[in-house]
């Protein structure tokens, strides 16, 4: 089941987007999300779509693969659409008892659905084209200024990369413990919700114990290799901007500028 979710996965193709600096992609995604909430008109919508489609084309990630990622959040999407549709006040189009659909609600929910879809596609494009390691590296660099207000940026990114390293190991371990408990007669599948939740205890306790033991071992191994936090550390793969990164920044600025300009223009006309 976990394997079906494509959000957050890395999809290796040798595209220019994959070779971009992770900082560009992080900032780009952030700008894209802002732009999604800036546009209000049909024209803005067209610009955003053109931008997104061209980025998808550049990434060489197959469209079907991206759409698969949407399946995981379809419920959330429908939920938002539903609420927007029924609970926006305005001109009534259709009414049944207390339930009514308004014109504004319909428009709102349509825009919201598009925005959410774009948001998910945009952010999953980032993870499709960036390895988790690059992502944490990029995040560390982008958030570096927060160090001044005593945010432990290096530690957070180190924790993230270790977490990523141990996810498959812990999944495997969960599987092992589950089988071991099943061999002792544990039942994980039958019963009501409460019974099922209770039956997870013999799974979770050993899992946590072993995770703590692993953490202890890992901390010792890291210290044995002279790990002393982020100060005085050098990087094996330091992030350096290339000319393509500057081009990407420039096109991002142009894109954001276009959205804002469009917004202002439309406001003037209206």
């Amino acid at each position: 089941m976990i394997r079906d979710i494509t959000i957050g996965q890395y999809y290796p193709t040798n595209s220019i987007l994959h070779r971009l600096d992770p900082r560009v992609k992080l900032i780009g995604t952030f700008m894209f999300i802002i732009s999604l909430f800036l546009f209000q008109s049909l024209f803005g919508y067209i610009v955003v779509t053109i931008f997104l489609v061209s980025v998808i084309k550049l990434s060489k990630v197959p469209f079907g693969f991206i759409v698969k990622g949407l399946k995981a959040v379809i419920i959330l999407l429908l939920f938002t659409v539903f609420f927007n549709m029924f609970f926006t006040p305005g001109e009534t189009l259709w009414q049944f008892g207390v339930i009514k659909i308004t014109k504004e609600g319909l428009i709102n929910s349509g825009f919201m659905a598009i925005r959410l879809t774009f948001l998910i596609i945009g952010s999953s494009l980032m993870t499709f084209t960036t390895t988790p390691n690059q992502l944490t590296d990029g995040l560390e660099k982008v958030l570096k200024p927060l160090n001044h207000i005593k945010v432990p940026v290096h530690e957070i990114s180190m924790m993230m990369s270790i977490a990523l390293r141990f996810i498959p190991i812990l999944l495997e371990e969960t599987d092992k413990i589950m089988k071991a408990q099943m061999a002792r007669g544990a039942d994980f599948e039958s019963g009501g919700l409460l019974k099922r939740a209770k039956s997870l205890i013999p799974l979770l306790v050993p899992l946590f114990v072993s995770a703590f033991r692993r953490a202890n071992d890992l901390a010792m191994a890291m210290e044995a290799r002279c790990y002393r936090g982020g100060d005085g550390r050098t990087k094996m793969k330091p992030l350096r901007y290339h000319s393509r990164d500057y081009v990407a920044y420039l096109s991002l600025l142009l894109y954001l500028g276009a959205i804002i300009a469009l917004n202002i223009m439309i406001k003037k006309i209206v």
Partner: protein
Amino acid sequence: MNGLNTSEEKNLWDIRQSAGMVFQNPDNQIIATVVEEDVGFGPENLGIPTEEIWQRVEKSLEAVGMLEFRHLSPNKLSGGQKQRVAIAGIMAMKPECIVLDEPTAMLDPNGRKEVIATVRELNKTENVTVLLITHHMDEVIFADRVFVMEHGHVVMEGTPREIFSRVEDIKRYRMDVPQVTELAYELSKEGYDIPAGLLTVEELVAAIDTLKKSQK
């Protein structure tokens, strides 16, 4: 250790630089998600310039014979391979001494052979001192010097041949001797004239050969 007292806290970091540790569980000592990045972790901590890190990573991965796996995730490797990556990670820090704390305890026989062969190779070609802590007597026979410990005290000391000539002493500490040594010991107990402290099959075969010739 290098004239530094290991029990003093302030010496800790200097000691960690000159003595690398390899632990028992290969999964719990690999930090990064890519083999080469894990090997680079130690040098990164030491503040070594980027170009040199790359050289060191390449060299130490080559030394343990894992260069072709450099871009893989550690999760895709076997236990023996993971342990070799861990050894490479230590080698990249250029220690004078590697301490291996039962590195083969969780490995299958093949992985064990791999790791021991790698360690012996490093000892010969890279001139690092290897301190191997183990329960497997078969791994001991390659050592220059053996210490038998009980309850934190050294109870026996000597070359493998000296140690394994004293089979009764070893048994008293509830330890085993290599199978060949055991066989030779039992034979000599039965009255055959076989020297004590044989370590390899070849040695035993030679001993039995000379015995047969002298009987003819």
